[in-house]
């Protein structure tokens, strides 16, 4: 469970990115955060694992105030939180499995990580994570040989190998083509339903957010202006979040896809 209490975030240059945020996210939810660029989506997400520390308030992640935690304790907390980035953030020249194994480093001593001598169990965890997202056969291939959608899946596998309670996703599909986008979003949905992992995702495409998330949080200028179920989002709500009606570029639009592929198989495309 994630709990924000009166959270502010002011950057060193004086810009206030988050204003008095109060929020509770329960286990197993699929939350999408929407809003304009610069409204505070990225900042909000990154405060949860303290990539950006908050400047005021309390932030509880599984009953620990993460804003007060440092060093080794912080790392132990972070290993329970997976993160997916828009630009995948893989080591391009490394193999897929080495990228996924990086998710396990916080479970071992520094020496083990430095030597790269992960135990067999870890390698199995990594391989199973890859299987879960449907790209097991690519395990020993160099990461940059994969398509964008496959690379994001590797990133997803890396997060899964952490055995996390929560996965944070920062515009995870913004770099992908429409068909791959649907596949990857299906993977997220499946992971959320089957494994009970809480998902908090920044979404650029509003229709995608409405379709996949159970709960929508709208941010405008650092303040939360909407917090509710996805099916309660109306055109007026969207205007209050974006200050205008939604542009075409903020919708994924209609995609011709195979209904069967949608059925949660994660096609490995």
């Amino acid at each position: 469970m994630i709990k924000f209490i009166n959270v502010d975030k002011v950057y060193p240059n004086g810009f206030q990115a988050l204003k008095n945020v109060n929020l509770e996210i329960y286990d197993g939810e699929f939350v999408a955060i929407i809003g304009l660029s610069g409204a505070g989506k990225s900042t909000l997400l990154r405060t949860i694992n303290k990539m950006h520390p908050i400047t005021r308030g309390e932030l509880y992640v599984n009953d620990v105030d993460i804003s007060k935690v440092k060093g080794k304790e912080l790392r132990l907390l972070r290993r329970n939180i997976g993160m997916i980035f828009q630009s995948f953030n893989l080591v391009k020249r490394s193999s897929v499995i080495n990228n996924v194994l990086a998710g396990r480093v916080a479970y071992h001593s520094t020496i083990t990580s430095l030597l790269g001598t992960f135990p067999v169990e870890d390698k199995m965890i990594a391989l199973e994570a890859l299987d879960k997202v449907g790209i097991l056969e690519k395990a020993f291939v160099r990461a940059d040989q994969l398509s964008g959608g496959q690379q994001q899946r590797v990133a997803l596998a890396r997060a899964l190998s952490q055995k996390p309670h929560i996965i944070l996703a920062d515009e995870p599909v913004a770099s992908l083509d429409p068909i791959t986008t649907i596949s990857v979003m299906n993977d997220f949905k499946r992971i959320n339903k089957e494994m009970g992992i809480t998902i908090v995702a920044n979404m650029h495409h509003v229709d995608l957010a409405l379709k996949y998330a159970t709960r929508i949080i709208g941010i405008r200028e650092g303040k939360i202006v909407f917090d509710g179920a996805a099916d309660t989002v109306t055109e007026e709500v969207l205007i209050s979040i974006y200050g205008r009606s939604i542009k075409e570029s903020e919708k994924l639009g209609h995609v011709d896809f195979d209904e069967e592929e949608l059925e949660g198989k994660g096609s490995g495309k």
Partner: protein
Amino acid sequence: MNATNKSTLLDKIYPQKIYNVNGKIIKKPRNKTIFIAILVLIIFIGLLFFIPTRNITIKFEQFPVIVKKMFSPTTGKTKSWAGWFLYIKETVWPLMLETINMCFLGTLFGATMAIPFSILASRNISKKGIIYQPVRLFMNFIRTIPTYVLAVIAMICFGIGLLTGVVAMTIFTFGLLTKMLYEIIETVDMGPFESLESAGATKIEAFRYAVIPQILPIFIGYFIYAFEINVRGSVILGYVGAGGIGLELDTAISEGSHYYDRVGAIVVVIFLVVLILQGFTRYARRKLQ
């Protein structure tokens, strides 16, 4: 599943790891890096035998002694700081200029000769293989001969002196620049060239107006680069017999420790010149971008 199970020798020494994930089999490729690392280690140890260290004592103390001798003119041949600077002004500096001169001419002649050859060697200008392939072969051959070998051959022909150096550098620069030039010419945008040709210009005219403007800044950059390399190599060429500052250095060193202050003077001048030249090169190349 069609698996022809040929159990090779390699499989017996170094079997591939097989993982079973949810019923699917995946094989881990063999770790080549270990092999390479071992190979490198073996080569390393093997080669160490060629470096004799048995009768050698490293006289670390000599180091400060030498440096001191290099910079205390009073105990050396030049007898005083005034003499030291005089030595620089009257002997070292003129020789340095001569050497730079030699490098400049060598680079110039080499670059000049390189232009027609590189044009011939580029695929987009001389479209027929029968032209560019032998030219390239010839150039590759020239490029494999190291500068000092060229210098030795030149010295045999021309005796000791600047001419040897100029000739050696010319040939070296020729080899160096032709390759760099034809690579550039091949990446040039041929559009303007073709449109000029179709408007009636001859190959040469089209080249001059369409290709040269694109290449000129890069060419100048390469010229400066070659010049810098040549200046660095000029010291050793002097040793081989090309004259210039290298020769003076050789003389001073072989005379013995009494002459170390002269050696110091030469070292300082050479180092400064190379340093300044480096700085100039970087500046010039940046301006050409």
